[in-house]
Every structure is written in C-alpha cells, then in structure tokens.
C-alpha cells in the first residue's frame, strides 16, 4: 500500500522563532496519527503547513490524490490546492465557529462543499445533508436551524459532517474535543472513532489530551520546540516513553 501523505524536511519559522523544524512523516490510508506536545511546540503550525493553509519555507508535502495522483501540494496551482482542500481533505477546527458558517442553516453548511464542487441538484444536496444529520446523531428536523442555536458539542459534530460530506480520504483535526465537557467529549470521540473506522479515513489528530490519543490514535508523534522528539505506536509510546519530554508528558497526566 502506498502512503496517502508524505512530508519531508518541512520547516516554518516565524522570524527567529521556530514554528516547526525538520518534520518528516508518512501517513497511510486509514491510519490515525496523533500529535501531542505542549502549547507552542509547533503542532498547529505543522498541521497548517500540511493542510495547505500556511506556506512552509522548506520541505515537501506529497499527497496521493484520488483524482490528480501524487502531487506536492505546495507546487501545484492555488486553484488545484483549494480544490483538493474542498474535495479531498477536510479540516476540523478546534472552535466550530472557525469551520462553520454561523448565519447559514445546518443543511446549507453540510451542502456547501457539495455545491462548491459543482453539485447543482437541490434534492440531492438536501438528501445528503439529511443523511449526514442522522449520521452525526443530530435530529434531522433541525436541518434548517442555524448553528447558533446548537450546543457546542452539536456544532462540533456539524463541523465534522460538513467536512466529510465529499468523502475525503484524509482529515486533519486540530483539538476537536477542546472546550467540551467530558460527557460530550466522550460522545464526540465515539462518533469520530466510528467515522474514522467506517470511512477508512487517514487522520492527523492534534491534541493535548493523551486520553484522546490513547483512544483514537494508531501512532503518535511527540513534539517539542518545533521538532518531533519521539514517534512510534500509540501504546508503545504511552506505556514506555523514551524521550525525557515524553516521559514528563505521560507522568503529568492527572488521575482521578
């Protein structure tokens, strides 16, 4: 099996400050890669560079696109890159307000990506939106309600539905469970795990929360000061961390 994403020598600095340095990673279809590290360790910078939102200074991001074949996302045209970002990968923001259009109904939010790739049949768009509402366990009767009337957990699920409606093979998540209370968080994690499994999504998941990683991730990268300091299978790294920083991270988790 060939990888869906290959990142080599990625580097992004903010002036003299390190954003992320010397990032190399490979992601295979259906694999969930967790990225952990403290605030400011470069997790989000790396994710933005890989997902086409922030131009890196060095390195390549090769994406195995179902429609265009193997492409370096930073050397194709802006139009193609934006097309891939709409169709073939998805990005889930920590704050659903960043990923949703708050003044457009839930159905419109889910349908937007379909319309943006050229679907011009209202009935089909409506049907897809209804199906996704059910899939993310939202009441399909609320399809015409605006996201502002939804709770935080519902908004987050809506954001996930909105980004997955075009069946992308790859999804990026930046702290998808941040800011949610634990019971809602558990439900969302359950949903994500199910979707990732059912759709065979390759996932890069950035989070502070080691419990989330334990539950979802197959492999882990630990980042510190912009660099990947340790990587390996999730259970292996969590149970037997080698790098001092990973050890610190694992031991500083609060237990009830």
């Amino acid at each position, binding site marked *: 099996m060939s990888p869906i994403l290959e990142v080599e020598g990625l580097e992004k600095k903010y002036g003299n400050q390190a954003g992320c340095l010397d990032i190399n990673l490979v992601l295979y279809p259906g694999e969930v890669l967790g990225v952990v590290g403290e605030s400011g360790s470069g997790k989000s910078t790396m994710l933005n560079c890989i997902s086409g939102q922030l131009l890196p200074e060095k390195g390549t991001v090769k994406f195995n696109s179902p429609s265009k074949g193997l492409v370096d996302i930073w050397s194709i045209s802006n139009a193609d890159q*934006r097309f891939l970002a709409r169709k073939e990968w998805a990005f889930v923001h920590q704050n659903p307000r960043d990923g949703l*259009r708050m003044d457009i109904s839930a*159905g*419109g939010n889910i349908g937007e990506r379909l*319309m*943006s790739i*050229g679907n*011009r*049949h209202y009935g089909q768009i409506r049907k897809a939106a209804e199906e996704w509402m059910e899939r993310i366990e939202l009441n399909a009767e609320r399809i015409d309600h605006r996201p502002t009337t939804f709770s935080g957990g519902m908004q987050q699920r809506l954001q996930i539905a909105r980004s997955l409606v075009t069946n992308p093979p790859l999804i990026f998540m930046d702290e998808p469970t941040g800011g949610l209370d634990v019971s809602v968080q558990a439900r969302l994690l359950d949903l994500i795990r199910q979707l990732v499994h059912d759709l065979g999504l390759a996932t890069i998941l950035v989070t502070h929360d080691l419990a989330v990683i334990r539950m979802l991730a197959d492999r882990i990268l630990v980042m510190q000061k912009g660099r990947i300091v340790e990587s390996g299978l999730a259970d292996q790294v969590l149970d037997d961390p080698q790098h001092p920083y990973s050890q610190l991270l694992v031991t500083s988790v609060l237990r009830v």
Partner: protein
Amino acid sequence: MTDKFQNYNFAYLDEQTKRMIRRSLLKAIAIPGYQVPFASREMPMPYGWGTGGVQLTAACLTPGDKIKVIDQGADDTTNAVSIRKFFEKTAGIKTTFKTNQADIIQTRHRIPEEPLVDGQIIVFQVPIPEPLRFLEPRESETRKMHALSEYGLMHVKLYEDISIHGHISTSYAYPVKVEGRYVMDPSPIPKFDNPKLSKSAALQLFGAGREQRIYALPPYTSVTSLDFEDFPFSRLRAQGNCALCGATESYLDEIITNDKGTRSYICSDTDYCNSRTELGHLGNGLDEVES
C-alpha cells in the same frame, strides 16, 4: 456677470477624470462581468443616489446625445428628475422620456420594457457590486473566489432560499453568470428583467460610486441566471394587467387605492405605459378594480 455654469466642464467631470473612467470602462468591457476598480469622485449628490452611474454617464456623454433617466422604471420620480436636471445643467444636452430615442439610458432598478437597440448604452446604478458580499465578508477572499471561479457559495444562498421558502425567493439583484465565467450582481433589478441582460443589443455598463467599481456587458453577451437543476430560474410577475394600459406582459407596480386595502397594478415602466395609452390601449382604470 457671466453665466453661472460657465466654470463647469462639459458634463461636470474634468477631462482627465473622464479619461480615467473610460480606461476602466474599456477594461470592464474587455472582461465582461469583472469588477474593475476606478477612482470614484465625490459627486454633488449623496451616495446611494447613483453617483457611480452619473460618473459613467458623464464619461460616455457627447454633446449631441439624448439621455433618458429612470428610477424604478419611472421617468418622473425624484432620483430620475434630479439626475436629468443635473445633466441638463452641466452638459446642456437634450433629454427624453422615450426609450427608443435615447442614446444613453441611466437607470436605477429596471431595464425598459422596449428592447434596446444597437448603439444604445444603458448605465445601471449599483449600490453593492460584490454578489458574494453577504456570504463572504472578506474582500481579499471574494477576489480570490472570482479569480479562481469558485462560485459554490452563491448556490448556498439559493439553497437557503429554497429550504426556507420552498422556492428561490430572491426576487431582485438575482445573481447571474456572464459567458460562463464571472458571477455578477446585476444591480437591484427585479429578476423579471434578468433575461433582458442576455444577448442585449445595447452596451450595458454598471457603476458603483461608493464601492468604486465598474463592470460591463458588451452587446450580445450571454448571461445566465444561477439556479438548481430541480429548481430552475423563473421570472416573477404580479398576477394582473396594467390598470392604465391593460398590458399583460410588462412588469407591474402594486398600488393600494384606498383604506380598505383595495389594490391595483400599473406598469412600472412609465414610458412603455404612456406609449401604449397613446396608441389607444386601455386598462380597467385604477378605481374600478376590487381585490
């Protein structure tokens, strides 16, 4: 004492300003539907009164021209009267109410019923030139969307219309696509007029003064109204005939004729209505219609 308008250049604007506007106009005509920025001037009337349209008309006007100015189809409403007077004073040109005699027609919110012909110019007053404005507030982003032809968002608005009202309820400023490329706001004309934009023999110019944008449709440009396959574009016309001239095809204004809410319809295009009455067409009259 000299004539008090002697100090004005022909048609108010100085020649350098007109050149600047004509340069933008040429670019706009070369790229139909593309919004060309221009250095809009302060005009002696408030924004929203057609400062963009007035500047385009001034830039296109030559001393022999006859102009017609309409506001919502009518020649005799405030906006039309003041702009007509403005050009009578500053350019000393002839004006007309007749659509077929005008060289330049400046309009707010309507296209005349009578088909325009070769050689005519119609100038639209545009309040907000950006069709994506209320969907995507970032100008940097909307420009990118135009550049890359990413117009899916426009359909989100139509989707919302159908999901709320069961049909596309947008009835004016209905978005159009020009020659399969740029999506354009046709200014707040009723969607009844949208089909007239396409393949028109006249040159159609759009000016937004406050927003400093010009766009244009050269003669015989193909213009299609956006829609869904299962909810095709449809014109909207009040069910009724004109009470004055009996017209059955024209766009109608609704008029409340008494305190009981009795209503009646008359043509919104006054020149069209008057020409028909002169030819002997008669409607049922304003007072006799019961709702």
